[in-house]
């Protein structure tokens, strides 16, 4: 059933958007206009030592903005934790069948390794702290689904998730403050004296891999914390009913 009111709103919106988007400058014109983009594309590797310019923007040019992103995840975890009270719940699922448990068990180290690879190669290839952190978070969620959340709680307890999340954020701040004390400004990279290395090597780009690792730990622990807060609460509802 199509509701007429929604059509009255949507069709004019689509028409207006069509006109607005067709008036945008072409990509070639835009490239001439974007001063920051031109500078980053020309000097990004020199400025930061990172081959991946997106990572260079994320952890160097706009490092302060990334601190804000990390805070967004932190506040999401905090609000979900506030909504679902902190008391520990006794019993959750028993997990899936033995076959699933065995085969996922064989895969777990490799999934962890893929996450680690993506985090640590963020300055060289597509990836970085956020993407790898999501893989780590989904690994923890997978453990909870396949083995039951009681077992997953034994692997990485709730307290250690909280500690990892806070440590990731604090280490990010600490690495930023190093720049402040070295005279380069908050979250400064090469200006703070972090070694540039050879661009393209795994140990290069100064503080970017370290920041990436901290963000990865924080995002992984944060997403797992959100999932377990919800799933434990859901289990309790089922027990009541």
């Amino acid at each position: 059933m199509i509701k007429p009111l929604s059509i009255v709103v949507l069709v004019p919106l689509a028409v207006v958007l069509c006109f607005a988007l067709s008036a945008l400058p072409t990509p070639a014109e835009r490239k001439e206009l974007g001063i920051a983009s031109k500078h980053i594309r020309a000097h990004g590797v020199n400025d930061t030592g990172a081959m991946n310019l997106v990572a260079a923007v994320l952890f160097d040019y706009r490092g302060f903005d990334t601190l804000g992103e990390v805070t967004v995840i932190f506040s999401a975890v905090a609000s979900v934790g506030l909504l679902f009270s902190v008391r520990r719940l006794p019993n959750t699922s028993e997990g899936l069948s033995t076959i699933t448990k065995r085969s996922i068990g064989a895969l777990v180290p490799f999934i962890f390794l893929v996450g680690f690879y993506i985090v640590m190669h963020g300055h060289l290839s597509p990836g970085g702290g956020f993407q790898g952190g999501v893989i780590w978070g989904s690994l923890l969620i997978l453990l909870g689904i396949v083995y039951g959340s009681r077992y997953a709680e034994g692997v990485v307890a709730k307290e250690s998730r909280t500690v990892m999340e806070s440590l990731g954020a604090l280490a990010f701040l600490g690495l930023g403050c190093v720049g402040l004390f070295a005279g380069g400004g908050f979250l400064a990279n090469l200006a703070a004296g972090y070694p540039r290395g050879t661009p393209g090597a795994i140990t290069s780009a100064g503080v970017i891999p370290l920041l990436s690792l901290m963000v990865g730990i924080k995002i992984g622990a944060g997403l797992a914390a959100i999932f377990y807060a919800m799933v434990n609460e859901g289990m309790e509802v089922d027990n009541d009913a």
Partner: protein
Amino acid sequence: MTLDYGTAIALLCLGLYCVMTKTDLIKIVIGINIMESAILLFLVRLAAAPGDRAPIYPAESNVPPAIVFADPIPQALSLTQIVINAAITAIMLSFVVKLYQSYRTIDLAEIRRIQH
């Protein structure tokens, strides 16, 4: 006005339609996520012209001068958007769970009926 922008507009309108007409809270959350992916598509499309390379320098030391990279800034901003998407989706879903615990339904019309 190309097909990419058209797809973004279509996705945005679909998501908005979903948010305006559905009464199931999960479907509303899905609609908001569809709208967010429309914005994401728009941002990434904005960053690149046809033929642009991803903004990652190749490993070899002598980069051919003909390579044109896509604009890295909108891509970094779209990463910000993904993170915020994840955060607000988590919070929206927690509210849905809380509403379900109070009302035993996630249908908005049903919840309004119970309230009156």
